[in-house]
């Protein structure tokens, strides 16, 4: 928190950009997680409504994106 105050009181272009990028990355990563959870849930509902031989594959691919969103959150929290 102290770092944030010192950054705001004595900013340099690089630090501001980095903070800005990190804030947006974290926000978008969480929004993306929300989207992928909704997408996976909806895939389940779609599969129940209309079941084909590829239903499980579709669900696996949708679920994979939750993992992707988790990786994005970790990256945006720790690597920026």
């Amino acid at each position, binding site marked *: 928190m102290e770092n944030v105050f010192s950054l705001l009181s004595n900013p340099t272009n690089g630090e501001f*950009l*980095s903070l800005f*990028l990190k804030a947006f*990355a974290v926000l*978008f*990563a969480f929004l*993306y997680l929300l*989207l*992928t959870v*909704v*997408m996976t849930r*909806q*895939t389940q509902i*779609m599969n*129940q*409504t*209309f*079941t*084909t*031989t590829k239903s499980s594959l*579709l669900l696996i*691919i*949708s679920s994979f*994106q939750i993992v*992707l*969103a988790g990786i*994005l959150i970790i*990256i*945006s929290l720790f*690597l*920026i």
Partner: protein
Amino acid sequence: MESAEISSDKISHAFLFRPDVRFSSQHQEEDVVLVVRQHIFTQLSWIANGFIFISLLILGNFILPSFFSINQIVIVNFFVVSFVISYFWINILLWYFTVGVVTNERIIDLDFYNLIYKEFSATTIVQVSDLTTKIGGFFGSLLNFGTVNVQTEGFEQNIEFERIPRPSTVVKIINNLMKFGGEEPK
């Protein structure tokens, strides 16, 4: 029409004759005769959009190094690619599950307009009063796709299969089912 004459479109999965599928309100004695989806050509708009996003990202990679560090550029790339994957996937799901189903008892139109809104319309074969086929435009005529409108008697709902492949064959199949009371001629 002999069943042997009709073949499924195994590559695009847009026209499936006697497929191995089930739907939520299917009756015990009800057999799925036909499943149709929009012609794959009609999906080119979102496929093109996805490639434009990727192209913009590649282009952006030449401009970004003057503003961001390598680490930050990799993360921006990771984000954009994830969003493009989801964009593709949402559109694939919407295309895959927006289907027209013809069974030996009913005609069903299942529409997913977006991830959270769906519409399910159905009518029985005996209620069908009129079938209309519309094939329009250069690509519709060239690639043989169009719209089949299933009208029912009175104020019952009308069902529309939009931009499906081989609309005339779909009409023939429904006509045969109407003629033989839901039983397909062998």
